[in-house]
């Protein structure tokens, strides 16, 4: 049998002998030759492409794309939304230009709000302390606690149908219903004390004001409904040397609003009340306001010393305030001295001032962090995450996201963005009544319940949110007042049935009433308020105080220097 042996072939002749050196030389030549071919470059190219296109590169959802109208429910401003949907999921958010208040504008966070439902800190199961629990256990614990002793229910977004459920339950149990009001509502609290009109039924008639004096309120940075003032400012003030709308911003630092204001008045931090008193004194001194109006005890010199301004600058500012009326003063928070300036200027119940939009709103009891004797505290998901009540009671905290560091005994997963049917009452600070209904556009990604659903499941006699919304639609239909803002503006008289009216609302239309300047707007303020309260400039980023931010917010905080990161600010 023939057998080929390599050594035989090599040894047949000396010329055919291949040495190790030959092998190395051949290999080097082959490698050099290969470089002259397209093979290595093609392989390199393919490797780069293969490595870039791993199968786990995220693929967007596929499916028919449709656009639905709804409302942002992240905070009580209730801006109008156009939500792009694909395969049943929200894939894009934009402002709805048909909304009469927000007029197509949104705060930056709303553009990524649809991603929040998938946030890693989304609360997906009931937690009792540090352990996972069940809805049944939470219901049993809450039922037991609410029977044992007084109950406190805290709401952060009053006036909704869900708020009625919370309030009704608290009343039935003999407990109390309290509201954690946003800054815009708190700033109106002084007028409630002086006029007896609930703060929630008062609003700023910005549209008819010619001078707006802001004491630290971030008017161009998310104050009120974000689009409302920014649109007005863009149309009537931006870039104009003598604008139709004069914005005077009083701030201790050059905030975003101060940077774009007609005039920025720099004062020492926390001296807003002192400046308000100084301005009142200067207005009286120059006979620019009625002599019978309240006079502050603080002198101009004292005000100048506290604010860091000169006496002459305060006098000049007083003249500017009344130079172009109607003038409206806006405080960032509850500051009686600043609010009293509006009384001095005669801006209460007047066009371009503080107006009353409803006579049906009830006053609410403000939630304080110190809660007296209570057996259980139920906190709705609308209450800012960092509101931590100081109490020994058992705390049942609803939230869609776990912001960490909570002292709640029970953490209960609430519906996330656009996952729940809710209605939207008038936004705080609005001069006209509005009403909208946000349907549940997307399905919840885990087993969630709102606080209202939770209470309805405990007490079957409570009306559900859907029923309350239905009855509110019927009330509005019966009153036949106002207009409906959809692709067109319809007068209420044109609706022939409550069903067609409700259908329009469920499609994202907004009902809006007319502002009313009530003649009975009587103010009991006789003496200049002495209580002062320090305020600091804030923006939507600090005001919203959400447990988590959308991941894309890192574009503002981390991937650019546009805004200071919340973690750095809090540090």
């Amino acid at each position, binding site marked *: 049998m023939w057998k080929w042996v390599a050594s035989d072939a090599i040894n047949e002749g000396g010329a055919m002998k291949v040495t190790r050196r030959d092998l190395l030389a051949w290999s080097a030549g082959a490698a050099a030759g290969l470089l002259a071919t397209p093979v290595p470059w093609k392989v390199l190219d393919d490797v780069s492409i293969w490595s870039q296109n791993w199968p786990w590169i995220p693929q967007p959802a596929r*499916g028919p794309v449709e656009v639905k109208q709804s409302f942002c429910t992240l905070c009580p401003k209730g801006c109008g939304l156009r939500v792009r949907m694909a395969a049943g999921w929200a894939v894009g958010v*934009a402002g709805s230009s048909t909304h009469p208040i927000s007029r197509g504008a*949104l705060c930056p966070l709303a553009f990524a709000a649809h991603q929040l*439902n998938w946030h890693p800190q989304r609360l997906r199961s009931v937690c009792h302390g540090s352990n996972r629990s069940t809805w049944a256990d939470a219901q049993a614990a809450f039922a037991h606690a609410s029977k044992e002793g007084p109950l406190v229910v805290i709401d952060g977004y009053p006036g909704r149908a869900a708020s009625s459920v919370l309030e009704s339950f608290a009343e039935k149990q003999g407990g109390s219903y309290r509201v954690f009001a946003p800054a815009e509502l708190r700033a109106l609290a002084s007028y409630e004390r002086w006029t007896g009109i609930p703060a929630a039924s008062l609003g700023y008639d910005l549209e008819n004001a010619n001078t707006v004096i802001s004491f630290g309120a971030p008017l161009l940075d998310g104050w009120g409904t974000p689009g409302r003032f920014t649109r007005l400012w863009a149309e009537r003030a931006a870039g104009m040397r003598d604008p139709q709308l004069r914005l005077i911003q009083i701030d201790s630092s050059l905030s975003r609003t101060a940077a774009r204001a007609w005039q920025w008045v720099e004062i020492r931090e926390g001296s807003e009340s002192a400046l308000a008193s100084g301005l009142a004194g200067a207005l009286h001194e120059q006979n620019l306001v009625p002599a019978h109006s309240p006079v502050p005890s603080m002198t101009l010199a004292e005000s100048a010393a506290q604010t860091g301004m000169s006496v002459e600058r305060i006098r000049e500012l007083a003249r500017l305030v009344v130079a172009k009326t109607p003038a409206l003063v806006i405080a960032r928070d509850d500051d009686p001295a600043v609010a009293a300036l509006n009384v001095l200027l005669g801006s209460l119940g007047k066009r371009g001032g503080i107006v009353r939009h409803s006579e049906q709103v009830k006053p609410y009891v403000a939630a304080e962090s110190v809660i007296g004797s209570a057996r259980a505290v139920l906190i709705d998901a609308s209450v800012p995450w960092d509101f931590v009540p100081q109490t020994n009671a058992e705390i049942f905290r609803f939230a869609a996201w776990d912001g960490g560091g909570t002292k709640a005994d029970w953490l209960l997963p609430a519906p996330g963005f656009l996952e729940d049917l809710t209605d939207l009452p008038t936004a705080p600070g609005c001069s006209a009544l509005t009403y909208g209904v946000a349907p549940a556009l997307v399905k919840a990604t885990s087993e969630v319940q709102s606080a209202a659903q939770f209470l309805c499941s405990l007490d079957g006699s409570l009306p559900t949110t859907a029923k309350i919304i239905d009855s509110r639609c019927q009330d509005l239909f019966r009153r036949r007042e106002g207009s409906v803002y959809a692709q067109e503006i319809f007068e209420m008289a044109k609706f022939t049935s409550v069903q067609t009216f409700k259908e329009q609302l469920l499609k994202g239309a907004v009902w809006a009433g007319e502002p009313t300047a009530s003649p009975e707007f009587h103010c009991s303020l006789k003496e200049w308020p002495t209580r002062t309260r320090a305020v600091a400039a804030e923006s939507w980023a600090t005001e919203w105080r959400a447990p988590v931010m959308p*991941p894309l917010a890192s574009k503002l905080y981390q991937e650019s220097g546009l805004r200071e990161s919340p973690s750095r600010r809090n540090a």
Partner: protein
Amino acid sequence: MSARYGMVIDVDRCTGCGSCMMACAAENNVPALPQATARTGLTPLLVRKVSDGNHDESRREAFIPIMCMHCEHDTPCVKVCPQQAVEVDEATGIVMQMPQRCLGCRYCMTACPYHARYFNWWDPAWPPGMQKSLNPGVAVRMRGVVEKCNLCHARLHSAKEKAAGAGKREIDPADYVPACVEACPTNAIHFGDLANANDPVAKEAHSAQAFRLLARLGTEPKLYYKSNEAWVRALAEPNSPQASEVQRG
């Protein structure tokens, strides 16, 4: 007839809120990675803060959104790209970036006078499930390629499809509005066809208050800015005395 899409940004109206940045990132499926920083992040649209250099109560600040300027002439990024991954679309004037061709050499980033190009350092990633919230009209770009503003080209495609469906050759201008333009709460960003003399944006671009950044380079950027403030207009040229005082955000 070909269009020349461009923008006029009214700097006096910009409040620096960042809505345009967020809307741009959401529309174009730009990832937000925890490890990204101001140097390594992806911000196809970046709002910068500038000031007039004063340090007292008279100090003025403004915000200038910076993105790809879609240079018409001698487009620097097109000239240096070895892969022909960048081109000026003849029909629209949009400077297009094709990630499939991009080698990741970053010559274009060096060449861009506006620093409006960004390198994708990492695989795009979102928390589990969040990919369901991505825009289906825009493909996610891979790691190792350069990204920039393409004037929301996916929206132009949609507008073309809609026009074709209606049997038209020309798109309805209302159907093609980039995300940043739509998002701006003060209507500071105006978008239109600069080649159409009747377009309000073309008229605005020729107003006395309009200016372009680094216009002396002769690249004919299609992004115009406008301001009534002389110190803001002076920022167009970096060697001006006012511009040397600029503080970048």
